[in-house]
């Protein structure tokens, strides 16, 4: 293992800002794994820490194949994590909207540039990421339909669900998008948590990455094969929206199978506890995403259902 500092900025009154990477194996730049870019993505760092522990073991056991290098960067934004702020500590910009970066630009552009220069040549890129709305996901792997990353490659994770999504204008400054522009096959891995640690979710993430590495010929490991992964276009997910705002009382969990008509959640009057609205499953399917904050706004997609085949 080679622990190295990828980028550093001198702090004025804070300790210096550092992006630290962990290299395993040597030779061809095979896969790069990136943890958090936002200050609330704690699970994403935790997943990387579990992977680093596992890679140390694999390296000691000689199970990283010859001429294969793995780089893991647990955090490209430790400053924001340490002050529990989602975006950059001073100007509130989002590093994951700054790629490919600019070395003569503003601070977050420079961070993005330095990180991207280090990781742009890898064959595969995996980012642990989060959704902008608070909620629990069924673990899955996502990629953007840019024509470079394919579902065949995504199947190597051995995950039950693969989500394809179309590129939106704001995506063009994300790490995932820019990786693909520079010929890296890129994926985003969603576990079931963001601001809290989920051991189970992290374990699933470690196994998914191990499967991917084994199926890509990077490590020696008995990969689990998912016989029938479900490949979904993100527009297939059926949103269940609130009409009212108030307390959110979930009645189901992510991953649960539901039949059409099943009550999914109640929206409660916050002063009188009366039910303002009950949300029902519009189709038979699986709860793919469910809001997990105590309050909800009106006109909000609090649940996404994956309809049965």
């Amino acid at each position, binding site marked *: 293992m080679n622990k190295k500092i990828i980028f550093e900025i001198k702090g004025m009154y804070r300790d210096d800002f550092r992006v630290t990477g962990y290299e395993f194996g040597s030779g061809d730049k095979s896969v790069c794994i990136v943890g958090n870019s936002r200050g609330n993505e704690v699970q994403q760092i935790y997943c990387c820490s579990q992977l680093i522990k596992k890679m140390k073991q694999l390296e000691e056991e000689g199970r990283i194949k010859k001429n294969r290098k793995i780089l893991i960067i647990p955090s490209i934004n430790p400053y924001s994590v340490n002050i529990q702020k989602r*975006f950059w500590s001073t100007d509130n910009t989002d590093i994951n909207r700054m790629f490919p970066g600019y070395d003569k630009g503003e601070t*977050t552009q*420079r961070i993005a540039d330095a990180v991207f220069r280090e990781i742009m040549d890898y064959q595969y890129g995996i980012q642990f990421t989060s959704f*902008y*709305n608070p909620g629990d996901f069924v673990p899955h792997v996502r990629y953007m339909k840019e024509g470079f990353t394919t579902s065949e490659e995504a199947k190597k994770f051995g995950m039950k669900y693969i989500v394809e999504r179309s590129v939106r*204008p704001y995506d063009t400054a994300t790490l995932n998008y820019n990786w693909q522009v520079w010929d890296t096959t890129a994926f985003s891995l969603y576990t079931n948590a963001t601001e809290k640690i989920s051991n189970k979710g992290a374990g699933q993430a470690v196994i998914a990455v191990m499967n991917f590495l084994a199926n890509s010929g990077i490590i020696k490991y008995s990969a689990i094969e998912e016989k029938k992964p479900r490949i979904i276009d993100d527009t297939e997910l059926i949103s269940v929206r609130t009409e009212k705002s108030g307390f959110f009382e979930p009645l189901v969990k992510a991953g649960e199978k539901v039949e059409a008509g099943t009550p999914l959640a109640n929206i409660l009057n916050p*002063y009188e506890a009366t039910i303002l609205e009950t949300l029902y499953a519009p189709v038979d399917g699986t709860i793919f995403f469910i809001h997990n904050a105590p309050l*909800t*706004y009106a006109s909000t997609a609090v649940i996404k259902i994956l309809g049965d085949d």
Partner: protein
Amino acid sequence: MVEVIASVGLPIDEELMIKKNRIMPVCKDAGGMKRISIVTGIHGDELEGQYVCYELQRRIAKDSDKLAGIVDIYPAMNPLGIDSITRGIPAFDLDMNRLFPGNIEGNMTEYLAAGIMEDVAGSDCVLDIHASNIYLTEIPQIRINEMHEKILVPLAEKSNVDFIWVHGASTVLESTFAHSLNTIGTPVLVVEMGVGMRLTKTYGDQLIDGIFNLMKELGIWTGEVAEVRKPMISRNPDDVSYLNASASGLFVPEVSHGARLAAGDLVGRIVDPLCGRVLDEVKAPRAGMLFTIREYPIVDEGSLMGRILNEEVCNYE
């Protein structure tokens, strides 16, 4: 007449409402009248447009018989942000100016954006007034995407700003309010002036003279208007030099905003208050006008401290 153009219930005993005030000639049919829309407050920490909304109405009311068209005032597109000194939409931590054109079937923020689009669309001219941010002060300027240059530059030239900056197209900017409306044929001028969280009354008064001039051109105002200034226009990215901090520290400016600089002139210093050292002397890389200057004095390595417009496009008199 004050109207609510979009609203949504918040969880605890509150309604989020986006309001506009329509001013038009009394006893006349609105059909066929030209319409100008004054939009501000998409970023909750940018307040320069607030004064413009007030003062414009005050001056119209003083000579209301000269009004021949519709003036729609939208002072607070992001009311929760303005109330809580927050640039984005509080709770969502989203930049409202990356949500357009919105989606009437979408989540709360997209729904509001779609409601705004629907109401403003069809205006003969829209001014989307911004105030830089809390870090930088800007001279009154209008920024234009090169895709819409032909329609917008002639309007911008009548707006009494000092500078028109025509910039390259960027995919990320396709989700802005201005781009979304310009794309469907409603011309939007993006004004940047002053600094976040503050008012610069002189800039507001300057822009209001420009708005009256625009209104006169559009047939919305029949009264006298002040002569407007001839703006500097930049179309070439190389016209602008950026001053980014080489070190983290305290930026102490040595020149004022708008200064005419020679190559090598001292713009300011980055200093270290802990050890009493100068970390860097910030010098003008070439001659020109300092049209942006750092207002918030703490800088990180990379922070923008100023922008200089090349002397050749400055039209010095």
